């Protein structure tokens, strides 16, 4: 049996910090995406601030400069969020450039990863390590 005091403390801790995803979980998601060939660094650029004051709304831009073949999709993952997937963007024939800006939530200081998949099958990766002062997802 857990002493009442410890139980109260434990449940309080659980209430404020939802279980975060792990880097291994994200690595598994990326592997499911890219197959056995690990994604190469470069080509794709993930633009995020290194110091985040408010994790509730963080401006993010992902872009692929001069891709050798059309970009099929860009996937964004956040390793420290309760749910690691952030968004998937697929580009169609009327897309002017493989670039998207949006705003995301960050639960804690962590690494955000972007993976671009090109039509020729190659995958490219970029990541940003950032510090979050005020976390999202809690309240």
């Amino acid at each position, binding site marked *: 049996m857990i002493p009442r005091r410890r139980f109260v403390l434990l449940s309080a801790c659980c209430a404020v910090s939802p279980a975060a995803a792990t880097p291994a979980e994200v690595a598994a998601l990326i592997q499911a995406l890219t197959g056995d060939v690990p994604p190469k660094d470069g080509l794709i650029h993930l633009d995020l601030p290194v110091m985040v004051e408010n994790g509730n709304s963080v401006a993010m831009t992902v872009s692929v400069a001069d891709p050798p073949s059309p970009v099929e999709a860009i996937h964004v993952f956040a390793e420290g969020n309760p749910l690691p997937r952030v968004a998937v963007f697929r580009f169609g024939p009327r897309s002017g450039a493989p*670039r998207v800006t949006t705003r*995301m939530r960050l639960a804690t200081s962590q690494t955000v990863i972007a993976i671009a998949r090109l039509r020729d099958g190659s995958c490219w990766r970029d990541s940003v390590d950032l510090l979050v002062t005020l976390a999202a997802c809690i309240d």
Partner: protein
Amino acid sequence: MVRVLVNVPKQIAANEPFDVKLLISHPMESGQRRDQMGQAIPRDIINHFICTLDGETVLEADFFPAIAANPFLSFSVVAEKSGTLAMTFTDDHGVTQTELVAITVT
């Protein structure tokens, strides 16, 4: 019905990429939060977005709870001639809303 703001340039040149900005007024409830009674607040987000120009896809996106409230999107479009941009999004209740914006190519 949710409020949507769309911004497209007034002057668009043929085959010249231009940016579309979109702001959807939506709480994007993540499903991770609890109310004062400790009950989980159910997830309610926009999970799918697609923008087409006269039926041809520009951008298709899947959103997860990590997208901030009142989602903002900015992306690039290329047009050959004047047409209509259709921006369709779906929320967790399966409700779909489409915003139509006419663009004029000069």
